[in-house]
């Protein structure tokens, strides 16, 4: 079967070609490539040029259809949102740091202790914003307004994550879940990953240096941002991360293939992970 059809069912109309392709079952072991002269004999095209024009129309149509379908995948917007959020954070921090350095350079009496701490920045920015020094003041106001936008976006990401990836969000929160998905490029990819891979998403540097040179393996990547991992005592953090990653792998599959929350699964998973923390800490005593 060729793109222009076979038997009496022949045409070069893009929509018909697309429909034909969807139905096609090709056995590559007995496959013979197309010959444009065959299409010419069938009267579909007059010459090589027309053949190429027709095939281009058909493949372009199918490609455009495919791209549109891909952009309609429900996680596509979430990925862009979380990436925007993380990049806004970077921009805000950079600008804040620069502005404070600037402020310090013209205010020698100012204590440098403010510099790195976040509370320092949050107090300093409004202060600079009230100053009469024009460009500096304006920049401070811009950063403050960007921070407000950032908070709104963060809330929106969490809201959307709960809808798009409900089970993963229930385990590690919308933001961390969205970051995991964004890092590997889509829910479809996470849904096919084993738990052990999910555990080290975001720790690729440490993972490859472990594989290559035998440094200790990473215990967690992006998952570390979740409170149950970073709040866990050091000696059981790896175990918690592993258990949580295994549950996340199941959650990702539920999200991808079923698309709705499974309260029974979520409760059981949470009990398992919290239980692990209680058990391991008791063992220590």
């Amino acid at each position, binding site marked *: *079967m*060729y*793109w222009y059809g076979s038997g009496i069912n022949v045409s070069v109309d893009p929509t018909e070609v697309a429909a*034909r*392709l969807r139905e*096609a079952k*090709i*056995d*590559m072991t007995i*496959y013979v*490539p*197309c*010959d*444009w002269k065959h299409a010419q004999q069938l009267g579909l095209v007059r010459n090589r040029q027309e053949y*190429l*024009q027709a*095939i*281009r129309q*058909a*493949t*372009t149509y*199918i*490609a*455009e259809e*495919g*791209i549109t379908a*891909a*952009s309609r995948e429900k996680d596509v917007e979430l990925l862009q949102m979380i990436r925007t959020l993380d990049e806004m954070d970077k921009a805000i921090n950079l600008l804040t740091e620069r502005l404070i350095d600037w402020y310090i350079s013209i205010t020698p009496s100012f204590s440098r202790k403010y510099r790195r701490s976040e509370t320092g920045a949050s107090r300093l920015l409004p202060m600079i914003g009230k100053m009469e020094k024009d460009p500096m003041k304006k920049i401070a106001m811009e950063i403050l307004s960007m921070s407000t936008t950032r908070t709104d976006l963060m809330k929106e990401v969490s809201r959307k994550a709960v809808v798009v990836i409900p089970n993963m969000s229930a385990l590690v929160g919308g933001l961390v879940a969205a970051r995991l998905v964004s890092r590997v490029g889509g829910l479809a990819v996470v849904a096919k990953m084993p738990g052990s891979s999910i555990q080290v998403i975001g720790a690729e540097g440490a993972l*490859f240096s472990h*594989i*290559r040179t035998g440094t200790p393996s990473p215990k967690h990547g992006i998952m570390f941002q979740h409170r149950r991992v970073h709040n866990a005592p050091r000696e059981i953090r790896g175990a918690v991360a592993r258990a949580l990653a295994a549950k996340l792998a199941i959650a990702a599959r539920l999200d991808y293939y079923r698309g709705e929350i499974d309260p029974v699964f979520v409760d059981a998973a949470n009990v398992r992970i919290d239980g692990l923390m209680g058990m391991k800490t008791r063992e220590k005593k």
Partner: protein
Amino acid sequence: MISVNGTLVSEGAGGVYGERMIGKYRVWDPYRSKFAALWYLDSSIDLPPGSVVLYLGAANGTTVSHVADYAEVVYAVEFAPHPMHDLLMVAKMRKNIVPIYGNATQPQRYAPFLETVDLVYQDVAQPNQATIAIRHLPFLRSGGRLILMLKTRSVDIRKSPEEVFTDTCMALEEAGLSMVKVVWPLPHHVDHAAIVCDLV
């Protein structure tokens, strides 16, 4: 292939990706394109006029646009939606590119579009690059050529590039290809091997 004072170029309408022009020629940058890097190390690599090319891993269509300047037709396969979008833009301007939205690991999905080709050029970031190449041999005419840009890091990060390379060559030879030459396109591209072989 055409070169101007030692710089590889191709003849066609410019402005595809902001490439430099020398007169009416488009400069083909070896740092952006492995095909160009290969030519700089071995100028006997050629794209004879009238060639029909199957290009796997077409990406944004940068290299594809240059190949299309030489070839009669380029069947360009790409599976990621974003690069595909760019490729469609490139294909709009060049009437001899057939843009195929498909996954090179599943040639049966787009096989109904393909005719017999003179050259299969493969540049995909996949672990099973030898298998992908071999699955496309039914499209290659006898005596035709395969250029496999082997990304050794995509195959197995635990093995050394040389090991991956040896395994790949063995698989290709078993499939009935005969090695013509191998070029490691340094310094332009690290941990890549350009494997050139012919179908006998």
